[in-house]
């Protein structure tokens, strides 16, 4: 369809608007009369874009970042926890304040001579059956030693940030650890005064080992909450490492007394372990 050519009236209106525009342009260039309009529009633009962003993009972004940050936080938390456990483990042996060794002088000497002989490798928990640990006799766990050199780890001592956990008894893909509480485990222990020695066997209950002795042979009186240390007699565990404290004493008969010792370390606390080489 053909468009009609502008009438003289329309031409005049175009001329009028061109002159008006020119006037406005001149005024705008030479003065700041339109500044308030421009500033008002700018503020409107900024605030409306802000509101639009808040309504449309921000909720989406927050949902995305929430899902992202959640998994990121979990990952970070895992990493931090691992780093923290490692630092605990690292500090555990070399700290003068720890309870690992009875003789704090060992640490002090090593610290002064800048020579730490307590070498250990880091191991990660691969599997442990908590139900079995809490209910039954067989207390085992499997660990994966990370700084695996050519060392033979069988019979090496395993500890965590709380204390001794057990010893390695088997080596396949992962290392099998016989926990202190396993009924087939036997740990030579002694009192601080070295006047009492006994072999503490695993009780089959979590966190407890039992020391059975003949009171006619060992006349030293044992009290509750007394602390027991490794005696170092078995050749597996180093001497003078704090094991636990007496939680109860049961006199079976005149020739047998059972001491129940609550051990310090719980293998279920933490996933990182140290494997002591000495």
């Amino acid at each position, binding site marked *: *369809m*053909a*468009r*009609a*050519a*502008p009438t003289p009236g*329309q*031409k005049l*209106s*175009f001329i*009028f*608007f*061109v002159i*008006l*525009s*020119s*006037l*406005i*342009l*001149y*005024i*705008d*260039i030479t003065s700041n009369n*339109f500044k308030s*309009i*421009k500033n008002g*529009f*700018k503020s409107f*633009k900024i605030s409306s874009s802000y509101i639009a962003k808040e309504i449309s993009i921000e909720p989406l972004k927050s949902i995305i970042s929430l899902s992202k940050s959640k998994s990121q936080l979990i990952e970070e938390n895992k990493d931090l926890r691992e780093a923290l456990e490692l630092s605990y483990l690292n500090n555990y042996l070399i700290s003068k304040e720890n309870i690992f060794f009875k003789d704090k002088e060992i640490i002090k000497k090593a610290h002064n001579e800048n020579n730490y002989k307590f070498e250990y490798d880091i191991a990660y928990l691969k599997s442990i059956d908590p139900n079995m640990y809490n209910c039954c006799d067989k207390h085992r766990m499997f660990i994966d030693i990370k700084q695996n050199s050519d060392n033979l780890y069988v019979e090496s001592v395993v500890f965590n940030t709380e204390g001794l956990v057990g010893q390695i008894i088997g080596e396949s893909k992962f290392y099998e650890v016989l926990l202190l509480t396993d009924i087939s485990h036997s740990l030579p222990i002694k009192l601080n005064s070295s006047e009492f020695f006994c072999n503490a066997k695993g009780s089959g209950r979590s966190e407890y080992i039992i020391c059975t002795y003949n009171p006619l042979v060992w006349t030293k009186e044992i009290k509750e909450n007394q602390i027991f240390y490794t005696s170092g007699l078995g050749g597996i565990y180093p001497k003078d490492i704090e094991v636990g404290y007496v939680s109860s004493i049961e006199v079976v008969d005149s020739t047998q007394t059972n001491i129940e010792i609550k051990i310090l370390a719980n293998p279920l606390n933490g996933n990182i372990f140290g494997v002591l080489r000495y």
Partner: protein
Amino acid sequence: MISLLKRLFLIIFINFIDLNIALLFSKIFIIIPLTFLAFSYYVYKSDKNISSLEAFSFGFFVDLISDSYFGLNTIIYCLTTYFINQNANSFKLFSYLQICLFFGLSASAYVGFSQLIINLYNFSYVTLLVSSFANIIFCFFIALIASYFPKRISIKL
């Protein structure tokens, strides 16, 4: 009313693209006034004559959203509208090449005029010439797209 709003939003959208690509092309001395070309195309494709008031209003609105001097776009928009209205029937006799040349050169005129107003002390003939060339090519490119690609989307203004 809806049609007017649609046009305004379209102008805002094109102006937004215009401002964004201006940064990119200014490094190679090219200015492609997308908003102006879009408005010219709207006037060209319109079935009826666009009034001077509408051209003035659109020009004023573009001045406002593009933060340029008030009156700069209104003058050019009014003149372009008048010229297109005047020659609307003649354009039907023109080839695509001639129409593209017309739009390309009018875009160059826009660039020259706006540069005279807003960039007088750094007015560059290189920018003007390169922009003219780029605008003509751009119009050809748009015409080619329109001719050879199927019209799946049609925006009714």
